[in-house]
């Protein structure tokens, strides 16, 4: 292969903040004092926090250096499965930084916040349209928060039906947040195994579904990157027993304009704006996890609801059946702006195209690497494909070794060891914003690494060697936690 894109260069160390600085320095311009100091009861006051004093240049250099120890989508390919690390258009950032948006107070009279409310109202409509659902709330802060909100809606629904239910069906391929969100809402998750094709069988669900079961949580496409082909039949079964169907929509990037979840039996679902709708991940957040529902769940949505009263937007708190609130204010407004901008820039055709290309990229990688890596489910995939380290295991090379070695080649590793149903899983989600050349380079790199695995396994065991640090001791970190300096 041609020269690896991964190499090394000069970067600078920087100590911890409190190992820098000197008392009396300033990195902040203290506003002019135009009032006198007022008496303040000393019993109420403390010493103030023990923060270091730094100059602006200290702070700027510190974070400039730290940033150079990081890798982002803007640096290179980041095929982290299930995370949809697509490129975030820079125009999103520009829009989100407009003074009216950043300065808006959430409790201002609605007459003074029309632009904000209109954006939210329209975004709700777009998301309902894309999912084929009837109504959307933007309040949840992330995917898991959306799941929890969805569980609360289901809970409220059954409560209204008069009989609360105790269980919820969750496939073994589900993301950890699914059972956790269900549990947070008091439900006991009942695991069902996916079949040899990696999807849910009608029978498996039929077996466990009963009147004690509030419903099912299906991730579709699922975490093996496969479409749940039986979802419609499964929904019928669940509905027949009075249950509801929750769809984890974190993987919606595969099927925009191709599948409307509302049309295949889904009653409630969340979207991850920080995945499908290009809002950047910010090193772990903030995200936004809107929840879309069918009519029968709309009365339970969190308050306030944005309403259009012939041209003026108002906030409606008077919703007797609402579950209440899951965040203090309206949700991650700053994130919504970016998703809204993305949808407006893309338009309907490009959103569908994005899904098609994300699926094309994943299938292309699947075909290119399937000889090199073991492919547990050799079927057409959606937006991601899952390999395993089975071929390499013999040589004591693990998924982790290959992942770490990828760093030296200049790529962020895929998601590893998830989903749990695949031993040593390597979950690759390229997203549509990776070009063929970038993907070809990734494939070449992976092949080169698999060669190294047989010819020079230590290259993998010692990897990464290019990063600022070598492999880190996570065991000690957990055994003797040092969580603050």
């Amino acid at each position: 292969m041609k020269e690896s894109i991964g190499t090394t260069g000069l970067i600078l160390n920087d100590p911890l903040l409190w190992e820098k600085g000197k008392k009396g320095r300033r990195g902040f311009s203290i506003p002019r004092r135009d009032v006198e100091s007022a008496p303040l009861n000393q019993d109420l006051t403390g010493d103030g926090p023990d923060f270091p004093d730094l100059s602006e240049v200290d702070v700027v250099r510190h974070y400039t250096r730290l940033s150079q120890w990081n890798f982002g989508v803007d640096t290179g390919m980041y095929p982290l499965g299930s995370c949809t690390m697509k490129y975030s258009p820079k125009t999103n950032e520009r829009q989100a930084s407009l003074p009216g948006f950043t300065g808006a107070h959430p409790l201002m009279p609605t007459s003074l916040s029309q632009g904000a409310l209109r954006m939210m109202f329209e975004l709700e409509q777009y998301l309902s349209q894309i999912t084929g659902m009837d109504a959307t709330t933007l309040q949840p802060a992330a995917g898991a928060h959306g799941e929890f909100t969805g569980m609360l809606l289901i809970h409220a629904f059954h409560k209204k039906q008069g009989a609360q239910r105790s269980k919820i069906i969750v496939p073994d391929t589900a993301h950890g947040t699914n059972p956790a969100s269900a549990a947070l809402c008091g439900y006991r998750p009942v695991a069902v195994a996916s079949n040899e094709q990696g999807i849910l069988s009608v029978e498996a669900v039929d077996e466990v579904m009963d009147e004690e079961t509030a419903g099912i949580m299906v991730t579709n496409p699922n975490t093996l990157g496969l479409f749940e082909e039986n979802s419609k039949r499964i929904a019928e079964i669940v509905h027949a027993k009075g249950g509801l169907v929750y769809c984890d929509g974190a993987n919606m990037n595969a099927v925009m304009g191709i599948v409307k979840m509302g049309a295949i039996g889904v009653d409630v679902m969340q979207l991850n704006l920080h995945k499908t709708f290009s809002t950047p991940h910010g090193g772990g957040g903030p995200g936004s996890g809107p929840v879309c529902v069918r009519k029968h769940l709309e009365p339970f949505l969190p308050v306030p609801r944005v309403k259009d009263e012939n041209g003026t937007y108002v906030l409606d708190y008077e919703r007797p059946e609402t579950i209440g609130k899951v965040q203090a204010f309206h949700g991650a407004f700053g994130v919504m702006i970016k998703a809204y901008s993305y949808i407006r820039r893309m338009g309907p055709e490009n959103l569908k195209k994005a899904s098609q290309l994300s699926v094309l990229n994943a299938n292309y990688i699947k075909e290119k690497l399937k000889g090199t890596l073991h492919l547990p489910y050799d079927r057409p995939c959606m937006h991601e494909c899952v390999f395993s380290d089975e071929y390499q295991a013999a040589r004591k090379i693990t998924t982790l070794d290959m992942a770490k070695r990828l760093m030296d080649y200049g790529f962020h590793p895929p998601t590893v060891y998830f989903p749990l149903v695949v031993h040593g899983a390597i979950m690759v989600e390229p997203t549509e914003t990776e070009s063929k050349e970038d993907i070809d380079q990734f494939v070449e790199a992976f092949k080169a690494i698999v060669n190294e695995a047989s010819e020079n396994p230590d290259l993998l065991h010692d990897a990464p060697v290019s990063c600022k640090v070598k492999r880190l001791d996570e065991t000690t970190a957990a055994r003797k936690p040092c969580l603050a300096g």
Partner: protein
Amino acid sequence: MLYLPHTSEDIASMLKTVGVDELDDLFSTVPEDCRFKGDLNLPEALTEWELNDHMKALSDSIAVSPEYKVFMGAGSYEHFIPASVSYLLSRSEFVTSYTPYQPEMSQGTLQAIYEYQTLAARLMGMEVATASHYDGAAALAEALLMAVRLTKRNRVAISSVIHPLYRRVVQTYFEPTGCEVIELPYLSTGVTDPAGLDAADDLAAVAIQSPNFFGCIEDFQAFGEKAHDREALFVASFTEALAYGILKNPGIQGADIVAGEGQSLGIPRSFGGPGLGMLASRQKFMRSLPGRLVGQTKDLDGRRGFVLTLATREQHIRREKATSNICTNNSLCALAAAMYMASVGGTGIRELARLNYDKAEYLKAELKKAGFSLGFDSPTFNEFVVGFPPGFKSTHEELLKKGIVAGLSLETYYPELADHYLLCVTETSSKEDMDTLVREVRS
């Protein structure tokens, strides 16, 4: 399309590799009856320039400072943010990275969040702070659930002068758990009535906010002791993190868990979100904390490095047995807060907090001079309640037209407080603005 790099040749050759003829054929595993045949009913694509105009129009329609003088806090505060913080926060290595699952490639985020945890813990006076939560309200709810887990009791008492919207979130989180949430009434002085606790027994936690929703400073110490007498955990909450730049922090007043909102620390208000849920606890409760934690460790060469740790608390390992379902948090907001705390510094935050206090006291005094009565006489930080004469509502609306927002009406949240308004003054309000406000409300 700018964000779709594939040329038609690319697509053709890739389809060939995959072994299908058309993009549609990629979806063979999607049953016919699951396929959506129509076109999405969405507005057609805008150019980057059309989007700029459209968004500018939306943004311009929103009332913000400096054009508007907004004397309103109530959980969302206007504070100055240095240009250096905004610039640094925009660096794409921070913005476009994911949760640091691969530490060798994410040391920037990891050290920065470790530093955030440390500064946050110092601000709250606690031993351990998490990497961030969604917002102050969700953090409070999770803190109370944590207390329920720790004490195996299922009743919590929360002050009625905790932010009403925070209480609403707590109610929502608790609804399905079967746990009981009792509310402690407030006294005419504007602080929580300790007597409210006398009856209550078998409590998992007692939650108090200070400065409370009325801006009044509560006696954490006293409530902490009362809670501990009942073997309940004491949960301290806050909406204005800057207050602890000068006020006694929750930790030294006996808090077991602290949960609040960090928006004041360098994060724009942006219509209420994203904010920063801050959550901290004593070391001994560390393993029961919800949410991510960054820890210090060493690499193979013995160099200092940082990793996500204590993952066995988390959903991706423990699934339904996890301490929480949280996965994505508000990392970039925590980073902003760290940059802000580093910029303000220990000396600066005291000065800045004091300035907030002094300015609020100035407005209080001027309003009193002007003949208005304060709603409560407990000491406050940068927010306080004013009791205006009946019918002030119309004056309030008149002032809006003049670009002045004279606080938040409390009637919606506390029906008994008709014509009472919650006013906020930060370092961003000049004496001149305050004098104008007083002049205007007087007339």
